[in-house]
């Protein structure tokens, strides 16, 4: 016979009722309701525990019919009793309506969550109904309305007419008397709430209303206990009050995910008291800190450090245990006489807590399992190409900051930047990148003011984990960026050690103007044209003109010179010393900058200094374990010196971090080619070509690897595709010529050789040697290689692993050359011969 545990009606209604109760009351309630039916009890308990564990999982549909964020509209009758009159206010999460309680015939305020935010109010909100004080908005009760959007909880509250303190402060400064009255009443209201074990949790000038009492005097009313909770109740993650509101009022411990407390309320109160005198508009001044210290000094000079000042400073002490014990203590002080000095202290306090963020909203403060994060390029909301460098730069800056965390795999730029713009499917992106969480955002710029929004969402259902909006000047960008990376790190890393925090904060200590120039330079570098790269060099040099001790600008300059030299734009002998000097300068300034180690490593590799290159790559990875470009560089470096297994391991590591990035695919193909795993190389390239068939370098490498495997006809076809897509570098032409010659089209190969011989553009001698080798002109090939050595041709680094030189390898001059550039005796020769034999056999 089925027990009651199989009665869906009973089980589900019990689950609902239990979830609506506070954690402390649940057990007793269940015992009463289930009695001795242990199976029923266990079923209900299991469902309740699961709800807590799932924390709203799948509850917000990805698509909502009749999407709108107005829970109620005027004239709606809620719960058969409350009539909606009009919407009066709307915040990040909630909407407040004016309404009529038709049963008691009185005007009330009705507050509920916006659609899309939690429809259920935490049971602790009920605590607010306990408070009865003239300075606290009376909360009557919680009800539930059944709507087409599902059940929505709402609060009924005393209706108060007036303006918010925030509006009042914007209008005009308060007089001393007004400020004092408001301060006293605020402290009194909060003290009363705390006496009733009710924490406000979201105290700010926006939820303080200035009304008037019967005699026309100011009446201060604290409203919005929507985020409040009882101090003693134990919360599970599922129902922890949402941390929200304006960060200026948020005590530092709340940023770290701790729950609101008496101490955090007093922090907020301290900030508000300060603002009574110092309206908010003057906060955002970039030089605020400087002015603050100036004032500090002048007060000390005049001996004004008073009891008042100390008290205010105590309120906003980062350490909650050092703040005043309760609001009464503050109240006594506010009533005290030395108001003038208090105002001075208040002014100081305000500057201390000036934070640029204006809104944060949060849907769960529990750090996620460490995992894989993708930073999707921030959308350039201004839509002017001029500001693209900003949105790209912020995203790249965040990636470079977050790769330093040892336990979070941050997807490399070259993969995550494939998802650009507004319209992409979050779940698909997450799946493609293998990322559990995505960081997305928008950047809008107007007259030097930036508005940056950022949000962290889950990849599986796009649920928001964290979000924030920052209004700042371009000059404050480094600080905002550091703040975003800190917020993300808090949520996804379990290893936020002091040293990692320090690394994340390092970005703030740069000259903002120089930083903006570096971002412009980086943007130009990524356009991959010779002209843009020259422009990039100019930007980096300008940045160094502003701040010559800027490590990152030096590192980027080093990379730029190296790339320009490799592409023949700058002569090798001019550019490489400059590149190396810049990278060395960067390291002398900041030896912990991974980008600088990578820059130097690349240069050392081109200078045939394998040991130094390997050391620098390893150092970069020690600093930023998840930096894909360092894994790639190290892989190439290891493969050219014959350490194939280690090279392949590095390649695989890079592929994990950069699953769909082209540079990583190309480097992987090169490593497989160098270690003669042609099949694996082709596999990687085919995948890359599927993702983006328009990238010429994929086809060039397809040609090189095919030629290596002995399939010269396939190589010719691949090179022709690359040429048609615009890759007509001299190197590609040499490889193409080789494949033509080897597939019997000698005449065409010779024509290419003649053209290159008389070409005005720079032809690396090592590449010309490839063409000679293809044509069977051994002596000319060897001579070309010798002159490549003389001109310090960096491509000679591939001497040992380049299969195109296999026919020359028996020449002692080649072995001598390898020894001269520090390469170990070639270990590939044997396998090469074998390989060629096997291809012959196959062909026969």
């Amino acid at each position, binding site marked *: 016979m089925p027990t009651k545990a199989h009665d*869906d009606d009973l*089980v589900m209604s019990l*689950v609902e009722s239990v979830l609506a109760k506070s954690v402390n009351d649940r057990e007793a309630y269940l015992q009463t309701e289930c009695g001795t039916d242990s199976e029923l009890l266990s079923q209900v308990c299991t469902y309740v525990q699961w709800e807590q564990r799932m924390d709203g999982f799948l509850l917000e549909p*990805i698509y909502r019919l009749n999407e709108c964020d107005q829970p109620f509209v005027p004239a709606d009758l809620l719960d058969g009793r409350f009539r909606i009159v009009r919407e009066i206010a709307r915040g990040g999460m909630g909407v407040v309506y004016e309404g009529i309680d038709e049963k008691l015939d009185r005007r009330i305020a009705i507050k509920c969550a916006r659609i899309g935010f939690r429809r259920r109010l935490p049971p602790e909100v009920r605590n607010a109904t306990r408070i009865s004080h003239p300075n606290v908005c009376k909360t009557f009760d919680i009800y539930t309305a059944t709507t087409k959007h*599902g059940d929505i909880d709402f609060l009924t509250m005393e209706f108060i007419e007036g303006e918010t303190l925030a509006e009042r402060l914007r209008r005009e400064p308060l007089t001393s008397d007004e400020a004092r009255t408001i301060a006293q009443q605020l402290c009194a209201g909060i003290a009363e709430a705390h006496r009733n074990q009710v924490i406000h949790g979201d105290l700010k000038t926006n939820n303080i209303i200035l009304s008037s009492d019967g005699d026309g005097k100011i009446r201060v009313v604290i409203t919005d206990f929507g985020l409040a909770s009882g101090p003693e109740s134990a919360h599970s993650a599922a129902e922890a009050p949402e941390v929200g509101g304006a960060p200026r009022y948020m005590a530092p411990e709340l940023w770290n995910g701790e729950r609101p407390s008496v101490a955090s309320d007093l922090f907020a109160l301290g900030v508000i008291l300060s603002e009574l005198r110092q309206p908010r508009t003057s906060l955002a001044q970039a030089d605020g800190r400087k002015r603050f210290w100036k004032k500090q000094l002048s007060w000390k000079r005049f001996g004004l450090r008073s009891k008042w000042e100390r008290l205010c400073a105590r309120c906003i002490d980062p350490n909650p245990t050092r703040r005043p014990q309760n609001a009464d203590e503050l109240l006594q002080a506010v009533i005290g006489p030395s108001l003038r000095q208090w105002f001075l202290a208040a002014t100081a306090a305000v500057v201390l807590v000036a934070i640029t963020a204006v809104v944060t909203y949060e849907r769960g403060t529990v750090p996620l399992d460490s995992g894989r994060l993708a930073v999707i390029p921030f959308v350039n909301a201004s839509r002017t190409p001029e500001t693209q460098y900003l949105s790209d730069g912020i995203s790249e800056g965040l990636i470079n900051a977050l790769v330093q965390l040892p336990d979070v795999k941050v997807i490399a730029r070259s993969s995550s930047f494939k998802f650009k713009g507004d319209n992409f499917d979050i779940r698909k992106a997450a799946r493609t990148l293998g990322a559990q969480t995505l960081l997305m955002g928008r950047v809008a710029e107007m007259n030097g003011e930036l508005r940056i929004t950022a949000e962290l969402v889950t990849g*599986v259902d796009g649920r928001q984990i964290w979000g924030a909006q920052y209004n700042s000047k371009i000059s404050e960008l480094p600080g905002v960026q550091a703040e975003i990376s800190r917020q993300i790190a808090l949520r996804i890393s379990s290893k936020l050690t002091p040293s990692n925090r320090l690394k994340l904060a390092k970005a703030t200590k740069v000259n903002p103007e120089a930083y903006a120039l570096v971002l412009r330079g980086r943007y130009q570098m990524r356009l991959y044209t010779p002209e843009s790269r020259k422009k990039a060099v100019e930007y980096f040099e300008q940045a160094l003109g502003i701040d010559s001790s800027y490590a990152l600008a030096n590192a980027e300059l080093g990379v730029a010179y190296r790339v320009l030299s490799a592409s023949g734009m700058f002569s090798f002998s001019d550019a490489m010393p400059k590149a190396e000097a810049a990278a060395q300068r960067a390291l002398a300034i900041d030896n912990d900058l991974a980008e600088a180690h990578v820059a130097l490593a690349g240069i050392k590799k081109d200078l045939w200094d394998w040991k130094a290159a390997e050391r620098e790559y390893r150092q970069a990875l020690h600093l930023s374990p998840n930096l894909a470009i360092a894994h790639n560089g190290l892989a190439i470096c290891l493969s050219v010196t014959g350490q194939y297994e280690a090279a392949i391991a590095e390649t695989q590591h890079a592929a994990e971090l950069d699953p769909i990035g082209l540079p990583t695919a190309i480097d992987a193909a090169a490593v497989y080619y160098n270690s003669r795993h042609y099949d694996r190389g082709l596999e990687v390239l085919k995948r890359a070509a599927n993702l983006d068939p328009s990238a010429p370098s994929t086809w060039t490498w397809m040609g090189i690897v095919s030629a290596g495997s002995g399939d010269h006809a396939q190589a010719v076809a691949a090179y022709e595709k690359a040429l048609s897509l615009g890759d007509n570098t001299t190197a590609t032409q040499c490889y193409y010529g080789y494949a033509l010659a080897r597939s019997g089209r000698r005449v065409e190969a010779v024509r290419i050789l003649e053209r290159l011989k008389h070409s005005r553009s720079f032809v690396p001698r090592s590449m010309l040697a490839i063409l000679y080798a293809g044509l069977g002109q051994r002596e000319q090939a060897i001579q070309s290689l010798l002159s490549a050595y003389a001109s310090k041709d960096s491509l000679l680094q591939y001497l040992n692993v380049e299969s195109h030189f296999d026919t020359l390898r028996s020449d002692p001059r080649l072995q001598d050359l390898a020894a001269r550039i520090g390469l170990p005796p070639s270990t590939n020769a044997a396998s090469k011969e074998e390989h060629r034999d096997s291809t012959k056999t196959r062909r026969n």
Partner: protein
Amino acid sequence: MDQLLNRLADTRPEWCMVIEVKYFLGLTDEEAAEALGLKLRTLQRTWRDARQWLFEQMEGGHADKSPR
């Protein structure tokens, strides 16, 4: 998630359907119950069971565990 749902469609089609109408279509409990011809509380229980299974699969990655 796609793969999991495909598997679910074979083993527990009613769970899969509830996830589709609740999560992908965004129906309310009442609408979903009506659409699937279930009692409201039965729908709610099925929805919870299906979410739990999916949550466990995605969180723990026990891809080989068959639906309860």
